[in-house]
């Protein structure tokens, strides 16, 4: 995987992760806030239910006591107390009394609990009342919850019991009000909330009527939990596949003497919460997508900035590895990448420098070997030739007979010329031999400026002599102490050769300038002249032995200079243009 791809992936994953983290955190906080509010609202509804239950219970007690105090009830009690009493004519009395007292349920009971008249189930006369049979209920002064059987099924009611005494006998009134939709409607439900009254899976009431909502099985498990735990239980019910249909439900068991009568279920719609969570999710997704897109763009831009120099470095490295040592990396910044690019460029420069030095060294070594062989090969026949010529001159001088004056003259001149040329040839061979046998430098600390002054002092006489008019010298030396480790003799020789070379380049006068500078690696020495300058080809061949642009030169001067510089692991080059003079630059390590 490419570095840029990895960077892009890291950017995208980082942004996505951050957005997901923020979205999740916001959703969790929102959910927690909603749950807290929901719980409080449901609890408030349950509290309100209990309060209304107490109020209605007191109301039921008042109504039952009013019925019990009526003359009709007294008559029934008297009739029921007689041994042969017939109360069958009162079979409809409970209905009348219940209507008058606005009671939903009323049973007039004999002392043994047999129904004389029932308002809500008139057909139950002569049967035992089966919803107030507990002795505790009969003694209870307050209203209590119970399940009242009716022809339509059991109904949850708030009931009270009162006795009507008549001469030691008594009848009882058991009546109450139904806990139904009206009761739920009186709770004053907040928007989004609803109250359900669970009697059984087939009887679930809401605030308006019999609940016609989705299947009640969804609530059955919640009610069962509340029934068995005997306290309120919570659950979230999702009525349809749509999450907005979810509803937080809290079921509170309604019990009387530990018997489960039903449950009040407070429901709070989670539509707003789901809606908000969806909005947050969508916002998060949108932000994630936007973030990813932005991240990709930013990443692309950033990686472009980061990887392009790296890729350039890599390309440069590959180019260097392929032999293109001239390869360079553009330095566009000053950061680490820029430093890296600079270091790379310096590395390649140093590589080139080292290579050139190596080339120069190899070249000098090669030329030295050539010079040694040449000197050796030429020196061997040269000596017999010189002996032979001298023998010929000696023999001719010893010969008296037959000597011709003209011949003598020719002979003398010829032999003199031969001897002279042989001597000259021997001198050349000697230089070659000297070039080939240059000793290794003996390094010692040398103050460069002093050495330059010393060299120039050798030329004072020459520069002031006749025939040498119009050559000015300029010394532009480094202000400080410029010390390097060199062989002083070889450095002096090199400088002398350069000054001689400059003088030779200005037969008609000019100016010679010597400059010294301190460099990072060591010292730099420049020798400039104002001669006619060199062409590019001449510059490239200038340090080749036996190459000279002068009529009388041997072509070894600059080669010796280069040899010295090379032996000192330095570097020399020439900067020149035709007509603009030339400058020889030497860099020497410290």
């Amino acid at each position: 995987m490419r570095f840029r791809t990895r960077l892009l992936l890291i950017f995208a994953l980082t942004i996505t992760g951050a957005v997901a983290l923020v979205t999740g955190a916001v959703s969790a906080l929102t959910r927690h806030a909603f749950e807290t509010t929901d719980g409080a609202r449901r609890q408030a509804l349950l509290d309100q239910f209990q309060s209304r239950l107490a109020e209605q219970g007191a109301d039921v007690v008042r109504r039952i006591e009013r019925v019990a105090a009526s003359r009709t009830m007294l008559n029934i009690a008297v009739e029921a107390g007689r041994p042969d009493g017939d109360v069958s004519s009162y079979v409809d009395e409970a209905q009348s009394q219940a209507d008058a007292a606005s009671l939903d349920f009323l049973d007039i009971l004999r002392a043994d609990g047999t129904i004389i008249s029932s308002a809500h189930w008139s057909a139950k006369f002569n049967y035992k009342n089966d919803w107030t049979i507990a002795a505790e209920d009969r003694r209870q002064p307050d209203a209590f919850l119970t399940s009242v059987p009716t022809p339509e099924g059991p109904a949850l009611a708030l009931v009270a019991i009162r006795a009507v005494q008549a001469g030691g006998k008594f009848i009882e009134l058991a009546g109450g009000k139904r806990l139904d939709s009206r009761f739920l409607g009186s709770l004053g439900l907040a928007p989004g909330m609803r109250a359900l009254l669970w009697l059984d899976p087939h009887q679930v009431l809401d605030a308006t009527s019999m609940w016609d909502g989705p299947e009640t099985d969804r609530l059955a498990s919640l009610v069962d939990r509340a029934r068995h735990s005997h306290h309120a239980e919570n659950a979230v019910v999702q009525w349809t596949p749509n999450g907005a249909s979810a509803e937080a439900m809290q079921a509170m068991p309604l019990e009387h003497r530990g018997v489960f009568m039903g449950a009040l279920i407070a429901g709070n719609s989670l539509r707003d919460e789901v809606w908000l969570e969806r909005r947050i999710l969508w916002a998060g997704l949108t932000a994630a997508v936007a973030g990813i897109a932005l991240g990709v763009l930013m990443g692309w831009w950033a990686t472009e900035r980061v990887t392009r120099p790296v890729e350039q470095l890599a390309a440069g490295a590959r180019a260097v590895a392929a032999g293109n040592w001239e390869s360079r990396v553009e330095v566009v910044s000053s950061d680490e990448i820029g430093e890296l690019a600079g270091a790379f460029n310096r590395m390649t420069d140093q590589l080139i420098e080292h290579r050139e030095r190596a080339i120069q060294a190899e070249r000098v070594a090669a030329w030295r070997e050539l010079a040694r062989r040449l000197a050796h090969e030429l020196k061997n026949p040269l000596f017999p030739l010189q002996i032979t010529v001298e023998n010929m001159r000696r023999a001719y001088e010893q010969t008296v007979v037959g000597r011709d004056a003209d011949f003598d003259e020719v002979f003398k001149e010829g032999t003199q010329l031969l001897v002279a040329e042989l001597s000259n040839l021997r001198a050349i061979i000697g230089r070659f031999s000297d070039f080939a046998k240059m000793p290794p430098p003996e390094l010692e600390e040398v103050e460069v400026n002093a050495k330059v002054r010393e060299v120039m002092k050798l030329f004072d006489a020459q520069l002031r002599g006749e025939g040498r008019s119009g050559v000015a010298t300029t010394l532009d030396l480094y202000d400080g102490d410029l010390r390097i480790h060199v062989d002083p003799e070889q450095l002096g020789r090199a400088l002398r050769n350069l000054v001689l070379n400059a003088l030779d380049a200005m037969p008609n006068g000019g100016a010679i300038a010597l400059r010294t500078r301190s460099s990072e690696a060591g010292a730099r020495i420049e020798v400039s002249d104002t001669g006619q300058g060199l062409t590019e080809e001449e510059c490239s061949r200038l340090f080749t032995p036996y190459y000279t642009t002068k009529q009388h030169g041997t072509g070894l001067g600059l080669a010796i200079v280069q040899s010295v510089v090379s032996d000192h692991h330095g570097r020399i080059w020439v900067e020149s243009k035709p007509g603009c003079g030339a400058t020889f630059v030497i860099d020497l390590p410290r």
Partner: protein
Amino acid sequence: MRRICLLSIAAISLALVLHAARRPHYGGTLRMETRRVLQTLDSRSLDQELRGLVFETLLRWDQRLRLVPLLATAWQADPARHNLTYVPRQKVILHNGATWEPDLAQFTDQPDEMALARNAIAVKTADGQLVGTGPFKIAKWNAGKSLALTWHEAYWGPRPYLDSIEVRMGRSLRDQALDFDLGQADAIEISPADVRRLRQRGAAIALTQPTTTLALVFDAAHPAPDAVREALALSIDREAIHSVILQRTGEIAGSLLPQWVSGYAFLFPVTRDLARARQLAARAEPLLFGYDRDDALLRAIAERLAVNASEAGVTLRAADSAPAQVRLVRLSITAPDAALALADLAQELNRKVGQASLPAVLRPYDLERSLLAGFRVIPLFHLPRAYELSPRVKNWPQAGSEAGTLADVWLLPERPGDHP
């Protein structure tokens, strides 16, 4: 002496006043109300109290259930009762003024048949109206709403005491009671369940012999298992219903015909056997139960029956729109003759619930046993018709009394301030 004379005169005057109060008066209009809604006027559709007033039969039953002459003055039968000869009454004038000229060839049925309302004499006039020979003739007929009868001046018998009778139809019991309290009716129907209460208040109540049988009948088209039918029959606590809901009006019934018609009704059991019922009803499916929900008495009894059945393990579920498997119905006793009444009951049962037709047996007891076999019909109560009468109404025919028909009813003269 003088004091004695004065006291004697006062006593004689008081006796004369009391005698005058009990002496029948002619004239007046009897205002009746009924729940029934008649759309046609014929001898069958009229209430029993009215039908003999307009359309008369050849014979009639007297209060002792003996056949006595009416339009036929005499009849003869050969020993095998195959050939019957009726002697029509002479100089009988129809309500349209024409003389009744009977075709004796059409009167060949048994004497009992000739006393049935469906065999009453009704002559269709040229304009399509039915006219009879009774003491009252139709003065005004508003189908479904009201009927006005006036006395027939050319009646062959004695003049009825009443000048006219007005009948308002389609009046609920509640509306009738309201009209009665407002003095707008002289005779209204009441529920048998209200008889005792009204009597305790001192109201004048008239009861007929039981003429209706309340019964549970199973629909042959939607049969219920035999055991469930028997369980239902055994679960019913007739005594409680009779004493509480019916307030002891009417009779507990184990038979279709009441005792006064058949004479053997007591032979049919009415005891409750809840244990046996529970045993039979084990794992019984609910029965769809139907009854006339507008009839308060039927509704009260039906609810009690449902409670009784539930106690035995049989669930009676209201058949709202679905066809009921068992229904609580009123069956009419159309004649005081057991055989005729049973035949009509069988027809009514066939018409209502598709019960099997009567087998070819002769004795009414066997006929009834056959009808009740298998608990497809469960008789519950025999109910009379009950009327609350204004104090002005006198000589209303009572069950077991010698009083005859409404023709014998007379009204006390209305005094100012009797009613608003």
